[in-house]
């Protein structure tokens, strides 16, 4: 976003009115639909019951206590974070080389076309893409056929309703994020820097480790955050691909709102999840920065 401090006109009263008139509608909307609801939910997380109709709700810490008392919630929270970490790692592992090849080896129209091809599936409905994986991964599905064609007599292969199925589906859903963010920061690296390092005798791996990775770090981190946060909170993907194996903190939170109707507990679990995500980002980001 631009910070045209030098060129921007001085703020007068007339300008203030213009600023309020131009930004007001958008931000009032955001306040009413995002920030107030989040505050309301935060408030609900401290209530014993929903304050609708004649129900009596008192302030309590019970909902938060429930998380720390029952090992069940802790296990699921850890499971969700593990899933987030694994999916993010695989997205980096497969996405970074892809972004590098696109940004540094492909040129011109081809690059634009390939780039569009990479983000095109990302534009299609996430739900639909997850559903289509069920037809690939199920017993007697496309994957089983393919494996048996490559390795005759491999036998049946059914990945549906397993942990790996959830990981495959999520990596597929979020891989374009990592490719996109890495591509943007890789494209900004001056090719002559890499050539200079090479001509001074640095090996390819050294160039990658000492030059490319550190310079691409902002893109990698942006991609990692954009993937890690939603994956920790995912519920639809584990439900469709995981079946019984797909119980995570996200599905438990969804249950509180759509099946069990314990909204205060759902709210408390949501904020605990958000809190842990922020904590991890606050601890991990400086560590990663220092390491490179």
């Amino acid at each position, binding site marked *: 976003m631009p910070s045209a401090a030098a060129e921007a006109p001085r*703020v007068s009263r007339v300008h203030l009115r213009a600023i309020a008139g*131009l930004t007001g509608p958008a931000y009032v909307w*955001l306040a009413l639909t995002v920030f107030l609801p989040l505050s309301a939910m935060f408030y609900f997380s401290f209530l014993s019951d929903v304050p609708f109709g004649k129900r009596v709700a008192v302030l309590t810490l019970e909902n938060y206590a429930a998380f720390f008392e029952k090992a069940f919630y802790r296990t699921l929270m850890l499971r969700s974070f593990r899933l987030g970490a694994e999916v993010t790692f695989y997205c980096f592992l497969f996405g970074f080389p892809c972004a590098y090849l696109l940004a540094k080896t492909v040129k011109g129209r081809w690059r634009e076309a390939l780039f569009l091809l990479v983000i095109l599936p990302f534009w299609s409905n996430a739900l639909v893409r997850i*559903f289509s994986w069920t037809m690939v991964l199920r017993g007697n599905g496309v994957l089983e056929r393919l494996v048996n064609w490559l390795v005759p007599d491999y036998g049946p292969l059914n990945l549906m309703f397993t942990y790996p199925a959830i990981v495959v589906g999520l990596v597929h859903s979020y*891989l374009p994020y990592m490719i996109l963010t890495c591509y943007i920061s890789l494209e900004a690296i001056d090719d002559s820097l890499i050539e200079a390092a090479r001509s001074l005798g640095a090996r390819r791996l050294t160039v990658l480790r000492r030059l490319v990775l550190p310079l691409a770090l902002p893109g990698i981190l942006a991609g990692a955050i954009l993937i890690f946060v939603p994956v920790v909170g995912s519920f639809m993907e584990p439900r469709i691909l995981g079946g019984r194996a797909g119980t995570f903190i996200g599905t438990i939170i969804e249950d509180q709102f759509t099946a069990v109707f314990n909204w205060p507990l759902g709210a408390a679990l949501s904020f605990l999840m958000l809190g842990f995500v922020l904590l991890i980002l606050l601890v991990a980001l400086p560590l990663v920065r220092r390491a490179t």
Partner: protein
Amino acid sequence: MTARRRGLARAGRLYLAAVLLFLYVPIVVMAVMSFNASQLYRLPVDWTFTWYLRLAGNDKLISAGLNSVWVAVVTTAIATVLGTAASLAFFRYDFRGKRLLQLLLFPPIAIPWLIIGTAMLVFFFWIGVGRGLHAMVLGHVALALPYVIIVVTARLRSFDPHLEEAARSLGASPWQATRRVTLPWLAPGMVAAALFAFAVSFDQFVISYFLSEPGVSTLPVEIYTAIRKGFTPEINAVSTIVILVSMALLLGVARFYRFAGER
């Protein structure tokens, strides 16, 4: 050395092809299965148009589809206008709190939809807005606004503010200068932003899921329900159509918005 470099280049191309294959396999499988007569997705494919014909008679899916389009169109109109106005303010004026306002655009993108969706459900229920298509529009605009502002701001970055000044000094009112000089120049950015907003809304599942009333839902919510209940192959047909529409939208965006940077 050159032989080795050529080998590396070939390996790179193979790798790109493998990643693309991974990205497209499920989509292609879905499209093919939508033409498969077997309800259990048996292979090899037994080609048929049955599912598309059945779709034409499926009132539930059709009304959900029309709801999706309605919500997306209304969302697009509101988000594009509000977002463009806010971007203009950010571009023209430097004021205290600008950084804060810009930072406030990130929570709607960065907080998991599960949390935003449930928070909207709780709040809308509490203040009496309730659930339904109007609630979905409220929610979808909030999700689309940050994208609109980011895209329009990117376009504005290469706009020369002196053009507006020139128009003003030649006697145009501020409104005239905006309408005759700034907005025509912004048009491609606004079209890209509008297509973005439409896609965000049209593909949105999580928020719609929590804000849908029984009986009134959008296509993604209906598809989810069908999948959970034991799906019918018609879902493949409608999903294939949804995917084609979404992809056509992105190709539309790409016409107006350079994704891959400078050519």
